């Protein structure tokens, strides 16, 4: 774990204050380590640390620890995971973004080198326009897009990330060449939000959670969500209702190193299932506005394969792989 010394220092000075009790306890199967292949604070880190808490409540006798291996859309962490072949005490949090990053960075290690364990959560994406925008509906935006793709600037997160993939899929569905999408990449939803609130771009795409408050307060207009049905508590039509056949979930889950024995795979899957069934996990999912989409075994492996094919296709069509 990076910063171990420092974390220990911090924990030491806090131990006295928080009085939350020491966590000790040994187990025959050793410490379960969860790798968050990103910096502290991001989505994968948050998922990992939330899972850590849920693991502790579901299996108190098992020691769990989260560590971060940031870099290159998670592919640095992926490479490290591949080096731990056969290690049954290691999980890596990953998701749709990693699938794209593997293609884009031409990573030598791919998900074929891992053992899929479980899909945990999904978050849908939302397409918004500034409140002052002339586009009232998705149809308005699509019409303008078809007329002149260059004039419609779309703000979102990093190039090749989930937001960009949604833009590409929307273009394809609308009959616009995905290469023509005028996508303005930002370092995150926050920066893109600023461009939208300042009415600098035509439209924006990000996770629902990132924009929902601003849609509710009327500063942004939501014109489409990427879910199959309308989302509860948010009065925004789906992309399908608006005439674009696009459905996409930004999912997250766990994979383990490749070359795992069947027994190890079963132990890990059972442990993750137990974690998922805990009240602590259910509460955290509700609090973070995630959608529970638990899948394990062959079901998840198949899902992973189909997502890889889809992402690979659209990234190539957008001209993102040199």
């Amino acid at each position, binding site marked *: 774990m*990076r910063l171990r010394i*420092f974390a220990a220092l911090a924990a030491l*000075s806090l131990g006295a204050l928080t009085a939350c009790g020491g966590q000790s306890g040994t187990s025959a199967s050793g410490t379960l380590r969860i790798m968050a292949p990103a*910096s502290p604070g991001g989505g994968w880190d948050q998922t990992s640390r939330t899972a850590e808490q849920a693991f502790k409540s579901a299996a108190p006798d098992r020691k769990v620890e989260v560590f971060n291996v940031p870099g*290159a859309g998670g592919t640095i962490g992926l490479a490290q995971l591949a080096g731990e072949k056969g290690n049954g005490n290691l999980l890596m949090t990953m998701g749709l973004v990693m699938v794209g990053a593997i293609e884009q960075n031409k990573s030598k290690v791919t998900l074929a080198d891992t053992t899929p364990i479980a899909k945990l959560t999904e978050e849908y994406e939302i397409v918004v326009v500034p409140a002052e925008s002339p586009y009232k509906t998705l149809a308005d935006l699509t019409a303008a897009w078809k007329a002149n793709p260059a004039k419609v600037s779309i703000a979102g997160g990093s190039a090749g990330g989930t937001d960009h993939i949604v833009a590409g899929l929307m273009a394809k569905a609308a009959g616009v060449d995905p290469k023509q999408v005028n996508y303005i990449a930002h370092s995150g939803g*926050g920066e893109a939000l600023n461009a939208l609130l300042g009415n600098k771009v035509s439209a924006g795409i990000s996770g629902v959670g990132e924009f929902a408050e601003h849609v509710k307060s009327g500063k942004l207009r939501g014109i489409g969500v990427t879910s199959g049905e309308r989302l509860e508590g948010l009065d925004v039509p789906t992309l399908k209702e608006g005439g674009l056949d696009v459905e996409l979930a930004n999912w997250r889950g766990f994979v383990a190193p490749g070359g795992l024995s069947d027994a190890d795979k079963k132990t890990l899957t059972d442990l993750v299932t137990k974690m998922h069934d805990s009240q602590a996990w259910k509460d955290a999912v509700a609090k973070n506005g995630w959608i529970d989409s638990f899948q394990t075994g062959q079901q998840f492996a198949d899902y992973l394969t189909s997502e890889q094919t889809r992402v690979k296709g659209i990234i190539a069509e957008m001209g993102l792989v040199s």
Partner: protein
Amino acid sequence: MESLQLLIDGFAAALTPVNLLYALVGVTLGTLVGVLPGIGPAMTVALLLPITFTVPSTSAFIMFAGIYYGGMYGGSTTSILLNTPGESSSMITALEGNKMARRGRAAQALATAAIGSFVAGTLATGLLVVAAPAVVAFAISFGPEDYFALAILAFTAVSSVLSRSIVRGLASLGLGLTIGLVGIDQQTGQARLTLGIPQLLDGIDVVIVAVGLFALGEALYVASRLRHATPEVVPVGRAWMGRADWRRSWRPWLRGTALGFPFGALPGGGAEIPTFLSYAAEKRLARGVAKEEYGNGAIEGVAGPEAANNASAAGTLVPLLTLGLPTSATAAILLAAFQQYGLQPGPQLFDHNPALVWGMIASLFIGNTMLLVLNLPLAPLWARVLRIPRPYLYAGIVLFAALGVYALNGTIVDLFVLFVLGLLGYAMRRFGLPVAPAVIGMILGPMAEIQLRRALAIGAGDVTVLVRSPIAAVLLVLAALALLTPLFRKLMAKRRSVTPVG
């Protein structure tokens, strides 16, 4: 006044013995991580996020605020004493601060940094209370073309004051710009100058560049001269700021605050740019003794940038609290902390959760005061670090630099990059190239590039978008003035000296 009443309520909630203890832990931790290169407040707060499960919100935010301000301040200590900035935002402090330390005025430099940080932090937090809505409207109106103009202004302001030789300054700047290119291009997702090394895909962290060029370069340079020169004895000097120091510091503190606060509120501003601008402004405004001392350890060059640095930390909270818009890494993590307490930051935060918001603002005042209480008495003690014999001192610097950089991402590749940059820093010193422009180029270059391309993409290739925004136009005119005034003055001086003859 309603907000004043709410603030007083916030103080009532925040001022308990336990909370003061949290504040103390926060500023101590913050100062520590600020001193260690590589480990910044963002990472520290992120690692401490799990305490939000067990600790009441006010206490947690008091501690986080302490860490945030403490980190901003701690970075300046090593900058001043050892020419080794712990954070990129305290890099400028090293320029004059370290020169002051070498002339035996370390304690004064540390004191003006501590008091300046306190003054700026307090004033900026006050501004946060009264001016947040106005400032946020201004910040939102900043488009990519405006950021591009801002970067141009920072380039011209800084390059015209940083180096005695223009060619050397530009060479150093070019090096920095090149280093800034390494990594995935944000707009297209293509890798540039990564030499096929996946660890370089995210670019080289500015902390590694600052630590490599400044700290390691300095250590190697000192080591190379140990045998040649008798070790210069650094006098520790008097302990406190004299009357003249106070007189020369208070205006830079205020100007630094005025620069730092709005820039902190800008989503793409960052803490570095206001320190550059403050340094440039103080140098331009320097008269008399200050003018002679500038470049040799002028107290103004420490007071201004340090105030700007801390004021920008408070400015960052404006878009965070009013819009739920994080503009720095630390702010993004504070946002996550808000969410842990079950509240959605955004336009309605002030109305829906006044207790938490005002408790946090009150905790900023407390953290800031605690920081001064902790650091001011320590200034003369810190200054004694300079008495450590140089071989031990610089060996320690190399160790801490390597440790901090390794802690950043936990990868060996970063250490290699650090040592390569250290050698580069040594070579630059050896051949008389200033290192600061390189770090400035590395910070401003990518920003200028991405914003220029964004502006052009949004404008569908129309170049006039760059000057059509009034903010951009004003900034570009200022940049032109910064560039042309010295030339113009030189021309006038020449003509004046020529006229009598002709």
